[in-house]
């Protein structure tokens, strides 16, 4: 499949060169890429889901390695893997249910005869169900099948109904692929509409005559604020400019063009202004499993200021930003150091920064990190497309969206770092 291969390589290069900006765009393109990978993947007769999962995992590893800081890539890969597992499971249970019904209709009068297949079907379904669930106390004592047993169970289900008709198999393999692609399409849809979903909740959070503080630029924040404005709320926005890229200027311009009362402040004025602020609303780069936030640089300071003055600190995040990893050492692992040209003009400082001529080491160094880590205790509320959540509730969403088996995916890229 040269086509998918070329696409993947293309995307990897783009990621590596940091050509794609913003987690939403990355997430969407990742999902689209995976969709084409899935649609071009040839599916063997047995263990179809296994083949798909392997294919997606292989591509996913490449993508994550290309840009380990862009967590949205890994999130989408895990989401797609979860989708495949789910679809396979629902197909398997449907097939088994059909089998049970067939047996029932075949020998209606013989009750003892069809008791066994139904029993085994129920057992397989129960096993598969518990395998998809994250590990819990509830399943601790039950016969937990190993993760390797999942494809086994499903393929055995496929075999048993393949016994009756071989045509079923092809239809099933086609169906699995079809369903998965359908679900991935839905995921892409979700990602592209997440702004609207979040913005819908704006009126519940922004009240009349409030003062909102934000930092930097985020599409989600713009949509959120404008949605409140459209609902005839009048409020003021303080925009911290977000050095060194000054994305706040862009945001301020956009807000003014939509008729919002806007004040631009420097980042260093946040503490001075925070006592007049009713709520801090910001976007995020990624939300970690413990409820911590990887956010544009400067936000930790804003969060601390908000905490000091007991101002609610609200983070807007589409569900594709929800990452099932823990930030073990956020300053080191999940940050990116950008070019010093954001801070200093090369012309002015070219003498001090000349690595070539001097004794090898220069006195001037520039550190320009892209992200901050905001610990969960500084965050009051997350607003996602599914509603408002506490930081401590994040693990629950993760359990819903990702299957525990796929978290292993993280280990390889993490150790490669």
């Amino acid at each position, binding site marked *: 499949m040269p086509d998918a291969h070329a696409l993947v390589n293309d995307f990897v290069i783009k990621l590596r060169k940091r050509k794609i900006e913003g987690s939403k765009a990355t997430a969407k393109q990742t999902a689209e890429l995976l969709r084409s990978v899935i649609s071009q993947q040839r599916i063997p007769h047995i263990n179809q889901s296994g083949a798909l999962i392997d294919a997606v995992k292989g591509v996913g590893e490449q993508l994550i390695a290309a840009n380990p800081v862009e967590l949205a890539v890994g999130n989408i890969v895990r989401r797609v893997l979860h989708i495949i597992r789910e679809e396979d499971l629902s197909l398997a249970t449907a097939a088994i249910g059909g089998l049970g019904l067939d047996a029932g209709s075949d020998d209606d009068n013989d009750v003892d005869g069809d008791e066994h297949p139904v029993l085994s079907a129920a057992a397989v379904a129960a096993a598969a169900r518990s395998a998809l669930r994250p590990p819990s106390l509830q399943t*601790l004592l*039950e016969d937990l099948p190993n993760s390797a047993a999942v494809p086994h169970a499903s393929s055995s289900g496929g075999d048993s109904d393949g016994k009756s008709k071989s045509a079923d198999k092809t239809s099933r393999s086609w169906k699995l692929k079809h369903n998965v692609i359908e679900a991935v399409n839905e995921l892409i849809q979700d990602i592209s509409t997440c702004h609207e979903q979040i913005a819908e909740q704006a009126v519940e959070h922004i009240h009349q005559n409030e003062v909102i503080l934000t930092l930097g630029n985020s599409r989600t924040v713009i949509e959120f604020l404008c949605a409140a404005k459209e609902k005839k709320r009048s409020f003021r926005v303080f925009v911290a400019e977000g050095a060194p890229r000054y994305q706040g200027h862009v945001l301020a311009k956009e807000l003014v063009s939509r008729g919002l009362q806007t004040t631009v402040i420097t980042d260093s004025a946040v503490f001075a202004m925070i006592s007049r602020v009713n709520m801090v609303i910001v976007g995020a780069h990624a939300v970690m499993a413990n409820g911590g936030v990887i956010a544009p640089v400067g936000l930790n300071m804003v969060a601390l200021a908000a905490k000091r003055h007991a101002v609610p600190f609200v983070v807007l995040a589409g569900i594709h930003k929800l990452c099932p990893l*823990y930030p*073990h050492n956020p300053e080191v692992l999940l940050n990116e150091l950008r070019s010093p040209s954001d801070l200093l003009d090369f012309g002015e400082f070219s003498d001090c920064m000349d690595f070539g001529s001097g004794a090898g080491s220069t006195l001037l160094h520039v550190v320009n990190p892209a992200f901050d880590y905001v610990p969960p205790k500084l965050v009051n509320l997350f607003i996602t497309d599914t509603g408002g959540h506490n930081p401590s509730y994040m693990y629950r969403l993760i359990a819903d969206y990702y299957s525990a088996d796929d978290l292993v995916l993280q280990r390889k890229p993490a150790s490669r770092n």
Partner: protein
Amino acid sequence: MWYRSASFILDKQQEERDAVARPESRLLSPTSPISSMAETLQNPNPNPKISAYYQTRAAHHAVVTSDWLAQAQAAVGQHPDDLPPESPSVDSGKPFSVIDEFNNWRKQPDLAEAVAAIRALASVIRSSEATTMMELEIELKKASDSLKSWDTTSISLTAGCDLFMRYVTRTSALEYEDFNSAKSRLIERAEKFGEISYKARKIIAMLSQEFIFDGCTILVHGFSRVVLEVLKTAAENRKLFRVLCTEGRPDRTGLRLSNELAKLDVPVKLLIDSAVAYSMDEVDMVFVGADGVVESGGIINMMGTYQIALVAHSMNKPVYVAAESYKFARLYPLDQKDMAPALRPIDFGVPIPSKVEVETSARDYTPPQYLTLLFTDLGVLTPSVVSDELIQLYL
């Protein structure tokens, strides 16, 4: 103006006078509330005032004589399944006692209390003559109640019993099957549980590896088999780290742990318990085990954990707890004294005047806000997840 009443002193004096007047009545009072169960009447616990759980722990983990160590080593060396667990069950005329069985299992230092409890309950099933599920359930309930009341201080014993009862009474695994196969299935699961507990430690050790980075200093309090496993795995993975061990008065469990770590060539430093705040600034993370994890997400652990967590919290150091999920208990302590006290003797080395009171409680409760993460075999959890898991199971 509000003054603190001195009644607690006066009451105590009164109590002592009463006790001198009627010595036999005082002996009766602690046993009277526990009754009804046939097994509890012949309670083999020789001294109900001392926590059996902590006695065992002290025996297993405190610094001990070399011949005891050799003996223990021999016990560990044997595969747990090789050991014939047959207590006087069928052959002898003595009636089967779940507590004896439990104590039998408990003697292995590597076997967790909850596993011993579940194995003991499994042998109840094995020797049971019940013919219906309901009968078996009642019998099990009796046995687990007597186990629980035998040592109320052991949280993992209670949790293990509860978990197994929950498995027996409300599980989908038993549907559609006749009684005998259900029974054998229960026994089989209980046997496997030991393996689960062993695996749990491995899983926890694996999960925590990413949190131990090169060059970090870890403060450890008490002797926890899970924490030891974590550190052992980290050492095997060639991580470079340093461990500060608290002494762990009065049973000096920290000495034992430092012994074990020294064997692994991990740089280790011993602290007296009161030096924790002094050395906290060089610590990167605090690692503790747990006797029990309660519904609030807090932990109950060896005395001193609370103050270490407080110091760590005030100095912004993460506190990590390593605990197997069968230690999750349905308790909700509101404060330190809100638990059945687990007492143990404390040797001060010098005679203490009889009028001086000694705080002999063996454990304290650390509220969830002072804990950062819990490493369990269910994954890396925030403290608030614990209640969620428990609700899911016992609702």
